[in-house]
């Protein structure tokens, strides 16, 4: 290893990110080269200085106060949900009754929480149809629909990027689409709350529920997230991707 090669590897060397062989080569080099040894020492000093300067120890009292604040917020939110639940159920029941009165046939197929009448299946079909499109930024979508779009919590480390599509005719539920760096065959979308299950519900051995479906040209695997969002993984319309691969991918996205 020469000095230029060592310089290229200096940061990962100091951060213990090198493979064993490269690490050994670096160690040998600093034994023989005083200039590079000094440079490594300086970089180490910089990191030590950085960590030392940015440490911000919290007192026991501050820690206790912090956790108390977090749990108080959790309690307050849970309590508000509990109190509001009855009212919401009542309001929903009224809304459902009105919708039933307007047309039973429509109600059977539409999403009862979406006054625009877009079903979960409609939204998924739109998402699939727009897989080739560039997703809009959340900011653009927020400006279009005049409200903020919440990104549901990510699950699965392979998912990255959070952008949105405005679903045609259904401004109440913009799709939040995540990009998958390793495949262009799959669309992974999340419908933030409000949408019901589609497909057939199944049970995993550990008791968790998921659903699978193949209808209207869609194949999908989905699940309800803890935050209420409906997460759905589906391949392109004509994708030859076998179901097994889709299930494996969905399982990876869902996490444990």
């Amino acid at each position, binding site marked *: 290893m020469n000095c230029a090669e060592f*310089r290229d590897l200096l*940061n*990962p060397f100091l*951060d213990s*990110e090198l493979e064993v062989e490269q690490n050994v080569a670096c160690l040998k080099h600093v034994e023989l080269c005083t*200039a590079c040894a000094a*440079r490594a020492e*300086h*970089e180490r*000093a*910089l*990191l030590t*200085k*950085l*960590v*030392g*300067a*940015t*440490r*911000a*120890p*919290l007192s026991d009292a501050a*820690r206790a106060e*912090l*956790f108390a*604040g*977090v*749990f108080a*917020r*959790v309690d307050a939110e849970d309590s508000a949900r509990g109190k509001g639940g009855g009212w919401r159920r009542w309001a929903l029941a009224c809304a459902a009754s009105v919708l039933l009165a307007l047309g039973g046939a429509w109600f059977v197929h539409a999403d009862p929480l979406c006054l625009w009448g877009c079903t979960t299946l409609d939204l998924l079909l739109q998402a699939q149809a727009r897989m080739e499109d560039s997703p809009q*930024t*959340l*900011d653009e979508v927020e400006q279009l629909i005049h409200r*903020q779009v919440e*990104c549901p*919590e*990510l*699950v699965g*480390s392979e998912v*990255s*990027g959070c952008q949105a599509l405005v679903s045609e005719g259904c401004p109440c539920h913009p799709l939040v689409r995540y990009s998958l760096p390793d495949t262009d065959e799959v669309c992974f979308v999340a419908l933030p709350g409000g949408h019901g299950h589609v497909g057939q519900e199944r049970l995993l051995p550990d008791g968790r529920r998921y659903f699978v479906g193949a209808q209207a040209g869609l194949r999908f695997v989905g699940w309800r997230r*803890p*935050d209420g969002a409906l997460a759905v993984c589906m391949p392109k319309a004509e994708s030859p991707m076998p179901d097994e691969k889709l299930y494996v991918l969905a399982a990876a996205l869902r*996490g*444990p």
Partner: protein
Amino acid sequence: MTDRRREFEELVSPHLDALHGYCLRLARNRPDADDLLQEGLYKSFRGLAGFERGTHFKAWVFRIVTNAWISRQRREQRRPLTLELDAVAEVADVAGEEVYDAETNWGAVYQEVVDDEVKRALDELPDEFRLPLLLSSLGGLRYKEVAAALDLPLGTVMSRLFRARQKLRRALRDYAADRGIEVTEVSK
């Protein structure tokens, strides 16, 4: 206290000082940092079911705090937080600073600079560099974990870390020189 809350406290406590320092350097002031930390912990607690036991909790919680901060920035600025640099500018910048300044007496620089100067130098770093540097050095996250937390390719994280340290080093050298400290090594 419920088992779930106790478990959460036990998981978080060892990393709380680092998280607090991280939030302080992200928000650059204590009230906002405290809010950010509490929001990050709240989201972590809510999402605890999604944490895979046996994996790196510190990386997980730093990632959630980072996401909370990015969301907050986005809300406040009403525009997407962009962590991408202009590629041409970056290439030109790297080329211009590639040569290591061998004439600087770094030993003297690091001995003389004070913590406040380090914090100032950090605060002045653009987000593109500050975030990977903080996550790596303060959070102790692996490069792969930094890449996942910031939604960046691994190579980009590595180049930004390199650049971040370079900028930090030079800022510290300038501070030391401004205070009249001899930062230039006498040629032998």
